[in-house]
């Protein structure tokens, strides 16, 4: 794994935070350094992951998809079965324990698809802390179920109407809140993006996905997989599952970005493939921007992937060649959501469906006798609207 003591992953990462936040960021770094060495902290986190989140999540053999795709054997890492319906809770449990340890009494978060917002609202309910979630109005509309869930959980959902009204703008607004209330507030960031230490912190809390997967596939198949496939927005589910296999050079790591209406259309969210290096939300990474360094609007049918940046560690994995990235368009993701629902009785989130859609192509390329794992990062109930044709 890349050295990251100073928050850098090769040429990516860093801490480009406004001065007012830097002392808070330092405080968070110090608290995390202490916590990760503290057995009691790890025990409490493990206990919560087991009995509250329901971990370990299963590694499921997808018999009918394997048959239908006529290629590699397909295993599904079932993060959709994690409590709240996505991998996001892993990070939220870790960070809420950290926040409590730091004596912070107010929690804020940003959300795109609402999965991180729901997970944040959930842990705040469980630990009795007030929670405010920033969400773009465009996302509130297309992920209305999650807005309802957050409110039921007692969180305050703040509508963000600036910019593209999606995840990027929700994050701007959350950072502005943190700047204003920095002394009392804990910013529970949901992805491996943002300034140091978040890319490291969130990654560490998501590595549980990879650790379990590695153990489970060795148990089930007696060997490591040939490929691991995950969708990439900010990249937390991808880095979470990749991390356990980075040293196993023969395991292909494949990240699937949102191709939107097609990479050629410009209406997509694929910074690793079409972006250039810059600084957004506090870290150096690939971002979607114009020649003047203005951030471009992105498009994806999956709100959780609709973000112009990506975690710095993924940028590093791209440059080093250790991971490979591709894109899946909106229509392909929709088709994959339907196919997996009918073939396996599992409705994946549209985000995760991007990974499923690419896995379909990959299964044939890999061929029989090979093994691949798809990270099913979340469930798709949130994407269904009454009245939509099935």
């Amino acid at each position, binding site marked *: 794994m890349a050295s990251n003591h100073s928050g850098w992953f090769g040429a990516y990462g860093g801490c*480009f*935070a*406004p*001065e007012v936040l*830097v002392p808070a960021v330092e405080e968070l770094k110090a608290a995390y350094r202490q916590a990760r060495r503290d057995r009691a902290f790890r025990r409490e986190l493990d206990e919560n992951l087991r009995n509250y989140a329901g971990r370990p999540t299963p590694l499921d053999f997808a018999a009918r998809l394997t048959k239908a795709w006529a290629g590699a054997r397909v295993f599904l890492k079932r993060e959709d079965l994690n409590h709240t319906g996505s991998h996001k809770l892993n990070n939220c449990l870790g960070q809420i324990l950290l926040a409590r340890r730091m004596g912070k009494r107010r929690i804020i978060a940003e959300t795109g698809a609402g999965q991180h917002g729901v997970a944040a609202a959930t842990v705040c309910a469980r630990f009795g802390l007030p929670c405010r979630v920033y969400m773009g109005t465009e996302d509130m509309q297309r992920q209305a179920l999650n807005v309802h869930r957050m409110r039921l959980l007692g969180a305050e959902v703040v509508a963000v109407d600036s910019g593209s009204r999606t995840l990027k703008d929700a994050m701007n607004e959350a950072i*502005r809140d943190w700047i204003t209330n920095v002394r009392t507030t804990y910013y529970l960031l949901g992805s491996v993006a943002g300034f140091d230490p978040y890319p490291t912190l969130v990654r560490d809390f998501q590595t549980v996905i990879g650790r379990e997967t590695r153990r489970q596939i060795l148990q089930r198949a007696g060997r490591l997989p040939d490929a691991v496939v995950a969708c990439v927005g900010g990249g937390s589910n991808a880095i979470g599952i990749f991390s356990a296999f980075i040293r196993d050079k023969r395991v292909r790591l494949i990240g699937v970005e949102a191709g939107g209406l097609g990479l050629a259309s410009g209406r997509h969210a694929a910074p690793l493939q079409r972006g250039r290096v810059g*600084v957004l939300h506090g870290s150096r990474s690939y971002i979607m921007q114009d020649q003047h360094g203005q951030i471009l609007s992105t498009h994806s049918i999956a709100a959780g992937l609709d973000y112009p940046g990506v975690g710095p560690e993924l940028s590093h994995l791209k440059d080093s060649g250790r991971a490979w990235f591709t894109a899946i368009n909106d229509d392909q993701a929709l088709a994959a959501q339907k196919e997996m629902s009918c073939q396996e009785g599992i409705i994946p989130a549209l985000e995760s469906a991007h990974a499923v859609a690419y896995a379909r192509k990959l299964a044939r390329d890999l061929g029989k006798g090979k093994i691949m794992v798809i990270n099913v990062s979340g469930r798709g109930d949130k994407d269904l609207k009454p009245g939509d044709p099935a």
Partner: protein
Amino acid sequence: MSARLASRFLKERAAGRKLFVPFLTAGDRGLSFTRRAVLRLAGLGVDAIELGVPFSDPLADGKAIQASSQRALQRGTTLTGILKLIKQLRRDTNVPLLLMGYLNPFLHPTPLHNIAAAARAGADGFIVPDLPPEEAHDWIRQCRAWDVDTIFLATPTSTPQRLQAIARLSTGYIYYVSVTGTTGTRQHLPTDLQAAVGRIRQVSPLPVLVGFGISNPEQAGRTARAADGVIVGSALVKTLAGRVTDAQALGKLSKLAGAMLKAVKKR
């Protein structure tokens, strides 16, 4: 320190006067409006002008400057265009001009390219709110090579060690952000300002200018007395918003800036 900034500040200090530095987003109402506004403000006798380089995602700014940045971007404002404007302005005015903006637009094509271009155009320094001292080594080196100032922000949360680093790496002046919060006008100003400014003066001989939240001449005058001067952004930028003609906007801007200047310079 840039010669323009140094001579101006020394002169004011010798006369026992405080400093007044207005901020405008370059390109708000168009760059030719910015040109007229800069000349008008310089004519009033302001000590320097901060020109905002608009960015699509100004995460340390409140509503007024967010909207102003948006207006400037909608008019197609670019850093290249702003530097061209500064070059033109240098034929007519010697008022110190500082570029203030988020890091990303300064990275393209490269930081060095932009620092050199800014210096050649006649800009006097940079203020980059999302570039803390820790990440600024190369940036500072290149700014020194081109003799443009690097102004870092100090805040109420800055620790004594951080204040020392900020003092060591700043040239020109130190920008003290008097509140934890985004830019924007406020009804009440902090009460512990004098103590905070005192802490900075202990570690730096540079003038300490206080910004964030100053909304009227009375606040400007009072704040200036607790420090070496004030920076006013949002309150001035607000005069450029809405359905008014350029001439009306310019009138409102110079009226407010003039009143603030007077309050600051009053002894």
